[in-house]
């Protein structure tokens, strides 16, 4: 498969890009932020997403979805990134779907159709501290009665306070097990925190939460592989969103270089800025190609996907970070103002960069996967 969008994918982009730009531009984020919105996203917008079939893009057709791939989901995520659109698409439509579809079984049958129909928001309760360390999950699931009892603390759970279900990764006797914990389960407390990018992420406390045996996603002790599927999809999705954030910031900045005058010249005439902008262009192009490669390998079910996913998260993280930093710097004083959008790009990038493993985490993973 060539590494560019085919005709169907290009058509998808042509319909999604104007839709997101019109319905949820940066001003939409500002509106939610300035009205201290307590949900973290617009349910009206999610209903529009649903009309276009977006929440169910990755859901298999047998479960009422479109059965598309990560390349297609990435197209949507890039536009979400470019417009800084607050949306549960990444956690619900990508991460949760990847886990449920990989596991199959009761929970897949229960939740995949609900995601595709836009009824269910799903949160991912993986992290337990300020850094992403999925190999050190301390939350426990112990057998109790007919099912399990969950105890532990989760953090950085996006949409955790409004999700209809949370996928909780917990330690069981023989490994990791994933659980579908419904919103109303007794003993679950979600404490939402406003993050730097105005999104809401919860600290979730699981205090003797009792779930039935069929709350297990897949098989008991066999959650490691499902968690890997969830992480690979979410990381690749976050990388695609970062490409959108970085591209949006870069486009804004390059336009600014063509408008702003100092010393009687457009500042874009100065070679000191031209070379930095050109360097950034290269980094963004490489990041885009890398993310597409990871999407392609995931869609092919290739063994090489895991390495490329970490490469993509790290590379997109570096490139988008450069884009937003150069963006603020090249905008000068106005880049420091809340009124101007470039700062919002910097904030969003910081949150996405941290989500599901930062640059350093993934660089380390690349070393490990290469035997050092």
């Amino acid at each position, binding site marked *: 498969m*060539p*590494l*560019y969008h085919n005709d169907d994918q290009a058509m998808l982009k042509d319909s999604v890009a104007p839709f997101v730009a019109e319905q949820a531009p940066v001003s939409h984020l500002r509106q939610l932020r300035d009205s201290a919105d307590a949900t973290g996203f617009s349910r009206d917008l999610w209903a529009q997403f649903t009309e276009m079939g977006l929440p169910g893009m990755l859901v298999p057709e047998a479960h009422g979805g479109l059965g598309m791939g990560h390349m297609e989901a990435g197209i949507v995520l890039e536009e979400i990134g470019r417009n800084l659109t607050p949306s549960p698409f990444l956690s619900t439509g990508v991460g949760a779907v990847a886990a449920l579809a990989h596991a199959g079984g009761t929970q897949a049958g229960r939740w995949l159709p609900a995601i595709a129909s836009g009824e269910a928001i799903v949160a991912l309760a993986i992290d337990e501290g300020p850094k992403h360390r999925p190999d050190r999950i301390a939350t426990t699931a112990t057998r109790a009665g007919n099912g399990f009892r969950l105890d532990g603390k989760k953090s950085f759970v996006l949409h955790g306070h409004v999700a209809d279900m949370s996928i909780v990764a917990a330690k069981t006797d023989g490994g990791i097990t994933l659980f579908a914990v419904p919103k109303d389960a007794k003993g679950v407390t979600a404490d939402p925190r406003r993050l730097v990018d105005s999104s809401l992420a919860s600290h979730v406390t699981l205090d003797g939460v009792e779930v039935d045996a069929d709350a297990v996603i897949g098989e008991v002790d066999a959650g490691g592989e499902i968690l890997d599927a969830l992480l690979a999809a979410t990381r690749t999705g976050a990388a695609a969103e970062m490409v959108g954030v970085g591209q949006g910031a870069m486009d804004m900045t*390059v336009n600014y*270089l*063509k408008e702003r005058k100092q010393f009687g*010249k*457009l500042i*874009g*005439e100065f*070679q000191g800025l*031209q*070379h930095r*902008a*050109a*360097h950034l*262009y*290269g*980094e963004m*192009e*490489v*990041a*885009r*190609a*890398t993310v*597409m*490669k990871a999407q392609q390998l995931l869609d092919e079910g290739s063994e090489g996907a895991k*390495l*490329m996913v*970490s*490469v*993509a998260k*790290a*590379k997109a993280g*570096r490139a988008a970070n450069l884009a937003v930093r150069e963006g603020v710097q090249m905008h000068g004083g106005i880049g420091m103002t809340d009124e101007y959008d470039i700062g919002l790009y910097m904030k969003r990038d910081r949150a996405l960069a941290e989500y599901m493993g930062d640059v350093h985490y*993934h*660089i*380390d993973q*690349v*070393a*490990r996967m*290469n*035997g*050092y």
Partner: protein
Amino acid sequence: MSELDAFRTEVREWLEANCPAEMREPIRDEDDICWGGRNFKFKNDAQKLWLDACVAKGYTVPDWPKPYGGAGLTPEQTKIFKQEMKRIHARSPLDSFGIWMLGPALLKFGTEEQKVHYLNPIARGEIRWCQGYSEPGSGSDLVSLQTFGEDKGDHWVVNGSKIWTSYADKADWIFCLVRTDKANKYQGITFMLFDMESKGVTTKPILLISGNSPFCETFFDDVEVPKTQFIGEINRGWDVAKYLLGHEREMISGGGAGGDMVSIGGAFAKAFGKNAAGELDDPILRAEMAAFDVDVFAYRAMGERFMDMWKTGRAHPASSNMMKYVGTELNKRRHELVMSGGGSEALEWDSEETKGGARARGWLRTKANSIEGGTSEVMLNVIAKRILDLPGA
């Protein structure tokens, strides 16, 4: 089975039957590379057998049309051919500036007669070409070149000098930018072809910081060039040159620029040893190598995307400049890490154990990557102007 799958099988079987075992070993020395030409001495029988087998199939230039010595493969077939070559680690049967540079210029700008006349000997490895572009006073500002060809009716008399002519001392013919109109900067250059054995041509190797001399100074003293030996139009050689520079960057982009596209840390872990946790036993170097590996794997994806887009006309025409810039900077970084990883051993300049200071010399050689074929700074200028459309660039 699709046609392409069938083609893959055919190539695989042909390679299995025709590529000698010695030609599947990594390139170790300069003389492992087959450059062809009048005076080329094959290192061993396998090198000659491999060349002859490829020449017979048109596989030295697989994507050139058959009448010019190629195999007439489509872009998809060429990609498969390259994949299959790589799969068995087959060496390139023939490397030359004729294949990389002059060939594409002839294919685009040459007459039918010229194509048949010049391309076939290139494909067969009979004539080795060198490139006469830069001059002592014209580096990045190439169009200011001064080597002059005076019109004498049926021939030109060429005087001047070129610099950085790769392997000029070993080449049979040169393709050369010569000023034929002093009044017209851009439309006053002719793309000439002539024999290096012509009277008045002399070469002098340039000793580089690596201790090697892959480049020469080349002097022209009343060299007579028949007025049939040019490509394109008289005084419009700059069009050919620009096309070739773009092609050169594309070629660098397609393969060479990132250097060896494998994990650097994996290779060094063997030499360094690992700690109890199985990590390279130098945490800061490990981190730098891992960060570099991320960029290498990322660039590999970029290379794939670039070629897929380039061959189907989807790429921005100036994007090869970005590829050249990113790839060459990456290769320089690789060799800095190779030196760090090698420690004091890598500093040895001529010992047998280091294969004559291969690492040190290789490291120094890579410093030219971001100078030759257009400096990194020129690449950034081109990106700023042609891709980002920045003002006054």
